């Protein structure tokens, strides 16, 4: 019995360091989005595909035909053909396993829902990932990559994200971080009209905070990033300028607010370096917001006069939404994801009975057609109207006979095992497996 398998392969901020992720990001320098999609579509057995690429993750979802014969060998085969597409030639094949995660079927669904609801993001509750997901889906549909399963899956992911957003306070917490950043900046600088902000690293949350600051009057945005192209595109959004990370010290001497989110594994700015910079700044106050996990900035920076350093937890304190509350909202959100995953599972299982129903109808039709032909051959004197009456009768008999078994198959109650059992029973009872 042929059926489909959903496969999700990806790399994200939890499994791969920034340096690797940046090279992977599709649409930057290397292969374009469309090219990668086309190559995926060309893969043997690949029915539907979709590709998401942000600065924190690259994920491919494919729906592959799973042949009973191929079972395990086939699965390994298609996976090993997709992985090189994901990594391109940036990573040596022996290192693939260090960064890669693969989720199959319902796990893949669950993971996608976690991503869509931002529960898998660096900053839980940020809304940008949903937009990126929608954009990726649009590109996939334009490239004719998606089919019935992915269409349903992604729409379900969007509605799950929406549900989480409306039923929990998870989104309020991300917005509140930007709000807190603005509030603090006001307490340090008074008016923000002549201030400038430097983004180190171009993460999702940094963008959100910068957006908030700009809407509050900050008039200059500078983006420093390892890859200049990403910095440039982000800077364009804010009519700002892009610089490379080497120019960081120069920038730190001039800007007023710094939002750091590089995701580098170690600190990028130490107290001693900042001390020298403060001298060059003539002690002009500077406000650091460190939203990277692990931290980018030396916590000791806060000890320097006129330097104010805040990390995510500090910002949360400002808006009095404490950690346990956030944790509670995340648990609520996770429960919604689990629920929606189960719903999707049910839909998928329902999908599995469709081929059986088709086969059942076909078998009944074949038999009745055959018998009608036989019977009519023996009754040559009948008129055309008589023919029609007999044909109608035959169709009505098969339809009425099939009604009960089909309703039985379609009944969504019960678990997957129960579904498989039902399908097996019907297939055997009606002799569908003979061919």
């Amino acid at each position: 019995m042929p059926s489909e398998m959903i496969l999700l392969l990806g790399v994200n901020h939890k499994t791969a360091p920034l340096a690797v992720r940046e090279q992977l990001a599709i649409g930057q320098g290397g292969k374009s989005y469309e090219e990668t999609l086309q190559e995926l579509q060309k893969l043997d057995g690949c029915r539907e595909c979709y590709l998401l690429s942000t600065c924190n993750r690259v994920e491919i979802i494919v729906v592959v035909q799973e042949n009973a014969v191929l079972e395990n060998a086939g699965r390994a085969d298609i996976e090993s053909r997709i992985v090189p597409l994901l990594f391109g030639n940036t990573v040596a094949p022996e290192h693939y396993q260090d960064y890669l995660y693969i989720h199959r079927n319902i796990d893949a669904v669950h993971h996608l829902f976690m991503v869509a609801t931002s529960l898998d993001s660096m900053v839980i509750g940020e809304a940008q990932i949903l937009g990126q997901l929608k954009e990726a889906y649009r590109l996939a549909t334009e490239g004719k990559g998606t089919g019935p399963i992915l269409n349903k899956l992604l729409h379900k992911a969007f509605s799950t994200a929406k549900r989480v957003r409306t039923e929990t306070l998870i989104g309020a917490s991300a917005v509140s971080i930007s709000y807190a950043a603005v509030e603090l900046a006001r307490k340090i600088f008074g008016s923000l009209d002549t201030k400038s902000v430097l983004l180190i690293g171009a993460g999702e949350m940094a963008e959100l905070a910068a957006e908030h600051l700009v809407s509050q009057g900050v008039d200059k945005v500078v983006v420093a990033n390892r890859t200049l192209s990403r910095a440039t595109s982000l800077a364009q959004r804010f009519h700002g300028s892009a610089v490379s990370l080497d120019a960081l010290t120069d920038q730190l001497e001039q800007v007023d607010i710094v939002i750091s989110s590089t995701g580098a594994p170690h600190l990028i700015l130490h107290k001693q370096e900042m001390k020298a910079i403060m001298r060059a700044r003539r002690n002009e106050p500077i406000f650091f917001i460190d939203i990277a996990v692990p931290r980018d900035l030396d916590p000791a920076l806060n000890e320097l006069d006129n330097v104010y350093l805040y990390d995510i937890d500090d910002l949360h304190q400002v808006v009095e939404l404490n950690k346990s509350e956030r944790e509670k909202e995340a648990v609520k959100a996770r429960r919604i994801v689990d629920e929606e995953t189960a719903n999707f599972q049910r839909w998928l299982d329902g999908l599995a009975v469709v081929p059986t129903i088709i086969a059942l109808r076909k078998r009944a039709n074949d038999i009745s057609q055959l018998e009608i032909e036989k019977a009519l051959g023996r009754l040559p004197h009948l008129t055309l109207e008589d023919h029609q009456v007999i044909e109608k009768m035959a169709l009505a008999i098969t339809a009425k006979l099939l009604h009960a078994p089909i309703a039985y198959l379609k009944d969504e109650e019960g678990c997957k095992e129960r579904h498989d059992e039902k399908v097996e029973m019907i297939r055997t009872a009606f002799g569908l497996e003979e061919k």
Partner: protein
Amino acid sequence: MPGAGEQLLPLVSFFVRISIVGDTSRLLFHTILVTHGLSLCVNWFVFVSQNQRLRGLARFSLVVVGILQTMYVLLRFFQTGYTPITSQHETVVFFSWSLTWAYLSFRWRYTVKNFGAFISPLILALLVIAALSPRTINPLAPALQSWWLPVHAGVTVASYAFLSLAFCGGIMYLLQNRELKKKKFGYLFKRLPSLDALDQLNSHCLAIGFVLLTLGIISGSIWASQAWGSYWHWDPKETWSLITWFLYAAQIHQRFSAGWRGKRAAIMAIIGFVSMIFTLWGVTFLLGGIHSYAQ
């Protein structure tokens, strides 16, 4: 109608008497004390409740106090016949009067949230000190009978007023800075203005105060040469004025040359204030010297 005239006479003489003997002045001073007590309450109430509608009233109450103080200083001027900055009582009243108007002039140009709540207690403290000091009117010492008196003493006390504003700003800066550094965001965080506003307050008031202080010292020196024969006597008051002057000069120099701002500037403003207060009272009561006319 001699009868009616005789009846009116005691009344007229009563008014004449109080205006001469100083009952009006006493009444006015008590009015100032009470009014400012109320003003302090309103300012603190606004500070605690964050009530936006009462903010205007808080400011207005200080304007009323300022006007009443002006009336009192003028009245005292007419009573004594000289600029009332000679006795302890007069000096402190003059100080509180300058402080109120320095605050109002600053408030007219800049917005510093809840500044009034910090200035009001200082004004009240000065008024209380004035209330506790003897209000007798002494004949003016011969050495002080000069038009240099209003110039030298007036300008110097006015400089103290602005330097006191910088002191209050410094305290507020340190409090707010502490909130931001400790990340506790308690009671004061919301109620205090931005660090930038407080640092600006510091530099502006310091600039005005320093210029006035310099003028005060120069005018004093010129007056000294006329009254005592030489420009500088190393009298304790002169010495301490100079120390205070150097403290402020150093701070201004450092701000422009090395960018001393924020916390350091705030601490310097507080140190300068302490030195200034010592010059005003400490020297007079502890060290004496030729400047001590008040005793």
